[in-house]
């Protein structure tokens, strides 16, 4: 199957470029570690033993393949289009993040390192990292913006229960961007013993390529599940985009299927026009952040601008370089969804399907309402239900004014 090959050739060189995007913009001290990681990733990709170990973990620990659920009652609100949900929320730890984390944890072992560090926004990647660290007996330190430790207190407790150390980051905007800065500083200092388990398809090469390769199992499974169920390919594949790992994971195996539209939904916050958003492609410009060239929310001096979103997991002023490239060549589209639109879709899915989605994921669901109405009732939409919403109950209750 053409779409099942590991590398589609979009990244032009070993340096991890996607057109003008990607590459490496990092202190020289990290180059040796990035080269080591890159080599480990490449050799693991063609090592049947590594692949079968990862597949076994997916099957017996994560619970893969994740199922496909048809959302018929929700679809009535989306112009009657068929809505198929790829249930990454049913994975162990509650989101797609575990796919990448298990892959990188195996690579950490392969490189002989004993300590992992991770950044987290919503806490999902931190929880997945702490989980893998417990499973593999690794030391784990998670950097989390102080503001996020407050709005995602439940996940902080989960990480601690799993044996991880959570370091609240008080610099800068005290959110995900600053957590990444601190993780990179830790990595520069402890690179001999430590692997930086980055959670999204951003950062310096090889992260955008490697994390995508670990996440594309979502799209590989979904593509054959949709074919089996409907006898054809979907008309559109939808996902929310912060850094963009769940989106690239489900998009990537469809890139060569030209009839399939790929649509990413960014966090529009209070609305693009207010400036209070995290819609990097829709509202940003090309620049350099956290070791990669991509779209960035920045001011006239190249200073990163603070992002805003009700969803901690999308509250990031950068985006993966492959998304920047897919946008520029017109293969994928990216649209903003406001906090209010996302929360409407959140509530609708709860009440029509009995599924509480993550607020991140609710952005893709809001997108489905929009796209479904555009494409009409014959359309088939595949949506990545990237995470479950247990962690968001507090935020949602506050938003809807429910007494707790």
């Amino acid at each position, binding site marked *: 199957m053409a779409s099942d090959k590991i590398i589609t050739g979009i990244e032009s060189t070993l340096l991890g470029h996607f057109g003008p995007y990607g590459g490496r913009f*990092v202190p020289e*001290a990290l*180059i040796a570690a990035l080269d080591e990681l890159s080599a480990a990733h490449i050799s693991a990709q063609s090592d049947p033993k590594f692949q079968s170990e990862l597949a076994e973990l997916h099957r017996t620990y994560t619970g893969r393949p994740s199922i496909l659920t048809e959302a018929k009652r929700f679809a009535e609100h989306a112009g009657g289009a068929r809505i198929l949900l790829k249930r990454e929320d049913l994975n162990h730890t509650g989101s797609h993040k575990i796919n990448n984390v298990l892959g990188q944890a195996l690579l950490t072992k392969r490189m002989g390192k004993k300590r992992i560090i991770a950044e987290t926004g919503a806490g999902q990647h931190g929880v997945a990292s702490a989980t893998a660290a417990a499973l593999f007996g690794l030391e784990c330190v998670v950097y989390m913006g102080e503001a996020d430790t407050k709005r995602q207190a439940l996940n902080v407790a989960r990480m601690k229960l799993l044996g991880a150390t959570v370091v609240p980051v008080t610099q800068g905007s005290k959110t995900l961007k600053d957590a990444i800065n601190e993780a990179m500083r830790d990595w520069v200092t402890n690179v001999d013993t430590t692997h930086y388990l980055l959670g999204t398809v951003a950062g310096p090469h090889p992260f955008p390529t490697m994390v995508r390769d670990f996440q594309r199992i979502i799209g590989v499974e979904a593509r054959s599940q949709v074919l089996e169920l409907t006898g054809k390919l979907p008309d559109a594949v939808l996902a929310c985009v912060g850094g963009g790992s769940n989106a690239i994971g489900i998009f990537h195996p469809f890139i060569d299927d030209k009839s399939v539209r790929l649509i990413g939904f960014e966090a529009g916050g209070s609305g693009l026009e207010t400036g209070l958003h995290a819609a990097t492609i829709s509202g940003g410009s090309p620049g350099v952040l956290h070791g990669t060239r991509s779209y960035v929310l920045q001011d006239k001096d190249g200073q990163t601008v603070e992002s805003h979103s009700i969803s901690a997991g999308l509250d990031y002023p950068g985006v993966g370089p492959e998304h920047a490239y897919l946008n520029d060549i017109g293969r994928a589209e990216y649209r903003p969804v406001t906090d209010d639109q996302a929360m409407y879709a959140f509530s609708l899915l709860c009440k029509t399907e009995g599924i509480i989605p993550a607020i991140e994921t609710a952005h893709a669901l809001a997108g489905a309402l929009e796209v479904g109405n555009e494409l009409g009732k014959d359309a088939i939409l595949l949506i990545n239900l990237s995470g479950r919403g247990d962690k968001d109950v507090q935020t949602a209750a506050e938003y809807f004014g429910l007494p707790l």
Partner: protein
Amino acid sequence: MPTPLEELFVKTKSENRAALIGYLPAGFPTQKDAKSIVKSMIDGGVDAIEIGYPYSDPVMDGAVIQAASEQAISNGAGAEEVFELLKMSVSYGAPSVVMSYWSPIEKYGSAKFASSISAAGGSGVITPDLTIEESNQWANETANMSINRIYVVAPSTVDDRLSKVTSQCSGFIYAASLMGVTGARSSVSINAKLLVDRIRKFSDTPIAVGLGVSTKEQAMEVAKYADGVIVGSAFIKIIQENGTGRSGLKKIKYLAASLAEGVRNGR
């Protein structure tokens, strides 16, 4: 034509000593104060000035420079302040360079940035997160300009790569003394000397050691084997602790004089 920075290293070599390079972010704590601080550094005996472009996400910097950068940015420091301080420092008599993460340079337009450095009389640009693989455009744009491209190498840089990176450096090679971020340390890592010795196998360009140097004794020790000693956080810390009144500036000058003595007595 050699840059003033290159001329400085010819001079310090003839004096059998290392050059002292002092770092300060533009606009810290205000642009007006930054000018007084740079003057005090030069008055005390700093040979060359490194003007930092304060950036929102400085991953190579420790707590002291992070706080200084945040303060400068919140006071509105940007490209204009960087070039203005550079010009002032040059006209006050010190060969001067700019240290900037790549994001502000790219946003400003790298060719235009280089021209502005040149126009301000600057000798070069240190780019701590521009890897050699991403530097082709920058190299082409600056090829015909009399400005030095200065890259950072680290103890983890393997020999093959050391040869490649240092061949692209002029003015000096920035040798990071340790695996870590900027900030004072109680001692200078043994890795600094090992790195300098390795660089000498590949390059005749002067080598300046940065990261972790804050005292006269450390400057003396580094001056034994390196051509330049870079001090940043120690100066900034004085201002953070003493302010920019007469006593703060006096302490800046005193530290500069003491470090200047160190770089003269290492060999």
